[in-house]
């Protein structure tokens, strides 16, 4: 089994797909860091113009000003219900930070690294996982090489399992490299510190209101590990579903296409979640796990961490069962 997994990893490395994925990561993280750096600068500049130089040097003043801005936005009669609840939660969160003397405005390298994964967990990173997983089986079907593997006195389930384990390993690598590149690149812009500053987590939303009674402060590094752990779990789920599609279809193009549209439909379906309960059982609308612990999620009744974890786990299990069942019985006609 070990040698079979090794075979799959060697193939993956030789195909250079992994390097492309890592290259994309490097470019995107650099762009994101530059953008963050720029917008932070701009915010400061604007506030300096409005409230004066000395005031803007103090993060408490900036946070207070942001709260005032949000309040006036809430008072506007034109704001829709969705934005209103999101804004209200964000405002209350900011207030909590102020009350507890935690600086939410400045960005450190550690905070950027956290924020990057929060922003990419539902679309960008899953896309990279699809690139890796989509051709694992369909590529061999299209190339005819699957025949080489299945006529060698190794049962089919073992062949498939070795591919799946190789995928999990590679995904772990990609998530790990995301962490590494984020830290390295963001340090250039924001400095390499901020690992021990406190982060508030455990916000809960009840009836559209933020509940802060269960909030605890944890150091940034601990929070970061939590976030990356969740991200890996989400990537495993996406990878597993993508792997299943790759078993079911014969061409890599079709496999990537199906997964892409599924993911995109996820962000599209998000806007119906409050009124329509069916889509919330789809895996692609449950991928923003990090938002539950950061408290930045738009509050939806009935969707919480346990719910989303359960939905994802069920999808993953189902995808594994379907993959192995179909692969073991199918006729190979290529």
């Amino acid at each position, binding site marked *: 089994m070990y*040698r*079979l997994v*090794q*075979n799959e990893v*060697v*193939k993956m490395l*030789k*195909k*250079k797909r992994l390097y492309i994925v890592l290259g994309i990561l490097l470019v995107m993280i650099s762009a994101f860091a530059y953008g963050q750096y720029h917008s932070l600068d701009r915010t400061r500049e604007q506030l300096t113009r409005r409230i004066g130089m000395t005031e803007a040097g103090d993060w408490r003043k900036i946070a207070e000003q942001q709260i005032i801005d949000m309040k006036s936005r809430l008072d506007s009669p034109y704001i829709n219900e969705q934005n209103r609840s999101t804004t209200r939660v964000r405002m209350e969160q900011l207030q909590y930070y102020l009350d507890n003397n935690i600086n939410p405005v400045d960005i450190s390298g550690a905070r950027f690294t956290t924020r990057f994964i929060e922003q990419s967990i539902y679309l960008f990173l899953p896309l990279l996982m699809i690139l890796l997983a989509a051709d694992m089986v369909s590529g061999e079907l299209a*190339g*005819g*090489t699957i*025949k*080489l*593997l*299945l*006529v*060698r*006195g*190794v*049962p089919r389930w073992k062949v498939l399992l070795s591919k799946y384990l190789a995928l999990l390993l590679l995904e772990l690598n990609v998530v790990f490299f995301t962490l590494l590149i984020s830290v390295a690149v963001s340090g250039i812009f924001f400095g390499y510190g901020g690992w021990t500053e406190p982060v508030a987590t455990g916000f809960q939303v009840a009836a559209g209101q933020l509940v802060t009674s269960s909030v605890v402060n944890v150091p940034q590094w601990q929070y970061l590990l939590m976030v990356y752990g969740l991200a890996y779990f989400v990537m495993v789920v996406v990878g597993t579903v993508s792997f299943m599609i790759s078993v079911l279809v014969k061409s890599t193009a079709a496999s990537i296409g199906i997964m892409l549209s599924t993911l995109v439909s996820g962000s599209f379906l998000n806007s119906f979640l409050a009124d329509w309960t069916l889509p919330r059982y789809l895996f692609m609308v449950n991928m923003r796990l990090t938002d539950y612990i950061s408290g930045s999620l738009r509050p939806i009744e009935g969707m919480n961490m346990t719910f989303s974890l359960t939905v994802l786990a069920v999808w993953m299990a189902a995808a594994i069962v379907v993959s192995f069942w179909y692969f073991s*019985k199918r*006729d*190979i*006609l290529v």
Partner: protein
Amino acid sequence: MVGVFMNEPVLQLTNIYKKIKGKDILRDVNLSVYPSEIFGFLGANGAGKTTTIRIIAGLIKPDLGKVTIGGFSLDSDFVRAMSQVGCIIESPDMYKFLTGMENLQQLAAMSSRITQDRIDEVVELVGLQHRIEDKVDTYSLGMKQRLGIAQAIMGRPRLLILDEPANGLDPAGIAELRQLIRRLAYDEGMAVFVSSHILAEVQQICDTVAIISRGVILNTLKVKEIGKDVMVEWQVDKPSLAMELLKERWDIAAEQTGKNRVRAVIERVMAEDINQAFIAEGIRLAYCEAHGGTLEDLFLNLTGGDEIV
């Protein structure tokens, strides 16, 4: 090679039926291949050759029937059955982004008994030693075919399956391949199952040939015995007397095909006797011609000039 008995088939197919998308692809296919036997599987394109091979290699499951390899049932003892098989199925697809050597190493890693020495040995055997470190992407079809043969034989299988192995090889390569197959069968005792649509090739190297057409095996025979019977046509002045003679003396049913023409299938060695007898009985023999006696005649005869399905 313990426990191999020459009289026990390495490969046995019993009553194989297969339908794909509602179409009968194979109907009641039976065959046995013995150690040290080169078994030719002959059929037009679409006759069911590759489907049969896929069933033997476990890539598709028959609807009915049983495949046994080296005494193990393919269905219930897949691993032990397939461990004794080396094969090329249809085209020799390999990983294009790997070198020839990397391909072989990948596949060798899937079985426990293949060493690097053995890999080097088969590379030399198929004559690829100079290009083995190049990417398969740069190989010609003939070189891919050689690489395919190398991966098939490196595990010293008891059953070697070659699907259209001459595809893409030049005449010299085909001659080398023929020699290699003979060596594997007669020196190493492998059972070799070769499918082909090229008649001359089959007749040249095979011991036994099975002819398949539209999913049915029409005939299985020893190649040595082909050519024993020929169809002879005589131009004589007394056709009815000639036919009577054939019937009386040799119990051969002849037919009259023209005003002075008589035709019959006879054993080749009897032709002289018959001609002698005709003359002795006062039949004037204008000429006599023989048809057939090659695998091609037999094939066309059996399949009715099989069209490509």
